[in-house]
């Protein structure tokens, strides 16, 4: 994935879309106020400069799907593991809830289910049937909408053709009006995401930690 910081307006449509797509529980004001809210993608807001000469910077942060992910090695039960496609997967059923992955993740993009999730009626009717509900005591995080990836793979296999670049997108990318988020296959050098990731505007978040993230951030040199 590529995130163009110069395009991001901080509208948080991605945050809302992600909630709806991935059955992310709403935990209420009291729990949210002590830091237990779950957002697989968040828009971080930073100010640069001193008032009145201030520039606001928005930085959408989601799981960076690291190639050398610190969360994977520390998990004692392989709940956090690297799947064959290079995705940093979380197997909810294997998770016993040591929360070690949450500590090890430098991006703080892992979220814990402190209670069993609940949806007031009729909100339960809006749940996405393609995404499992996570029970109390397990970790969860951005999956790059793995259910959409799998659906597309099944579709192209049935139709006996190759997957086209941009044929499907995760919910956040789909809902990004300024097109700040671009998703695609990094293994295909011709895809748009590969082209953008090679841009000299590209940086990785906390690159110095050596986690080799698969998300590239684009921003102008300043």
């Amino acid at each position, binding site marked *: 994935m590529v995130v163009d910081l110069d395009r991001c307006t901080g509208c948080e449509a991605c945050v809302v879309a992600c909630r709806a797509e991935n059955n992310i529980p709403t935990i209420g004001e009291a*729990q949210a106020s*002590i*830091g*237990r809210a779950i957002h697989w993608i*968040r828009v*971080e*807001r*930073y100010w640069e400069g001193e008032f009145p000469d201030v520039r606001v910077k928005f*930085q959408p*942060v989601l799981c960076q799907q690291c190639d050398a992910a*610190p969360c994977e*090695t*520390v*998990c*004692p*039960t*392989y709940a956090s593991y690297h799947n064959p496609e290079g995705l940093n997967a979380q197997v909810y059923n*294997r*998770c*016993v*809830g*040591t*929360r*070690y992955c*949450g*500590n*090890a993740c*430098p*991006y*703080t993009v892992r*979220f*814990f*289910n*402190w*209670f*069993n999730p609940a949806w007031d009626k009729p909100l339960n009717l809006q749940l996405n049937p393609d995404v499992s509900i996570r029970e*109390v*005591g*397990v*970790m969860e995080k951005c999956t790059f909408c793995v259910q959409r990836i799998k659906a597309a793979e099944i579709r192209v296999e049935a139709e006996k053709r190759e997957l086209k670049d941009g044929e499907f997108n995760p919910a956040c990318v789909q809902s990004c009006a300024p097109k700040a988020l671009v998703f695609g296959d990094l293994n295909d050098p011709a895809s748009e995401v590969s082209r953008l990731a090679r841009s000299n505007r590209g940086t990785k978040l*906390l690159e110095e*930690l050596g*986690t080799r993230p698969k998300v590239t951030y684009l921003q102008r040199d300043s």
Partner: protein
Amino acid sequence: MKTRDEINEDLLRPLFHTSWRFFVAFIPLALLVLAAYGAFIYQMWSGIGVAGIRRPVFWGFYITNFVFWIGISHAGTLISAILRLANATWRRPVTRCAEVITVFALSIGALFPIIHLGRPWLFYWLIPYPNERSIWPNFRSPLLWDLTAITTYLTGSVSFLLLPIIPDWAVVRDKAAGWRKKLYTALALGWRGTPKQWHRLETAMHTMAVVIIPVAVSVHSIVSWDFAMAPVPMWHSTIFAPYFVAGAIFSGIAGLIVAMAFLRKFLRLEEYLQPIHFDNLGKLLLMMVLLWLYFTVSERLTTWYGNQNDEMAVFWLTQRGSFAPLFWVMVLCNFLIPFPLLAAKKLRTITGTVIASSTIVVGMWLERFLIIVPSLAHKYLPYSWGSYRPTWVEITITVGTFAGMGILYLLFVKFVPIISIWELKAGLKAVHSPQLTIDSKPMVAPLVDR
């Protein structure tokens, strides 16, 4: 000098007579343990969210307690093994009450990783066994190293505790009647005190003493690696393993001195646990005070001088930020109060060492807390910085485990002579026959009174 009969009389008294004071101590402790148990059930029932941990501080009181208790467990086996190998003759009355701290503190400490799980009923998924999920646990995870190390240490220290109890249980067997006779006959495992049996016991003890030292060191190194292996500011440090081992021995000796003071008072062991024992352990503790200061200064100085952004955020949080009061209380408890008490010969009395040890126990708990929480609260991206506040659930469980330690200890002294009778008698023999004082392990073993 006490005679053998007097030793028997004094040390077996707690096993045969239970005064009202036992129940005065036992009942409130039992209530606290029950409260903790209730809190844990409540936490499992409602979800771990009733504890105060939150994102990004995923580990709080529970893991603090885990590290703390594993640290306290280094009191016993390690110290007793070192003193045995060094042939320190003054160790005799001290070894058993030290070794039993290890076993109990380790059992309590090992509960905490389970209490803190999101789904504690699945803790056994960390154990490598052929299972329906067809996968091994992840051997790359420090938590799995932990499980292995703690199980090894627990097995080792239980044998280290039980082996030298066998002759003492034989003494109890010979003095007891009724149900006690039956119980201790079974426990004494047919001990007759033959030279062959003594030889085997001595060999086993010597082997265990050698083996248990590297195991003890490895346990707390691995506990430190739970933190040091993760790329978290101020955790990811090479100093952590020795820092934790030194801290563990430090808090362990302090815990031992406090326990000895209680035993001395309540079991009337004034003539066995003498000022000399507190003085000697006090000197050992003084060395650990200095070692603690050395490690803390090394850690802080290199961080400050290196001046890396991520680490400095955590550094200032503990030096002058919201965790600073706790930090400076820790320095007070771990150095400023104990150092003069232990360094000045006049102050290194029983009262002095006990005060110093009590503050050290508090200080070392704070140190564990300050290692774990501030780093998690201020990880790399400032947007996700957070804080932590425990709830009554965590506090109840924490208090309950201290009460649990008390209860286990109370029960132990009711079933086992808390001072090793045969080792004490071996000491007597060594004094009476000069040729044996050079090697305090007698070649001809003392016979058990029959």
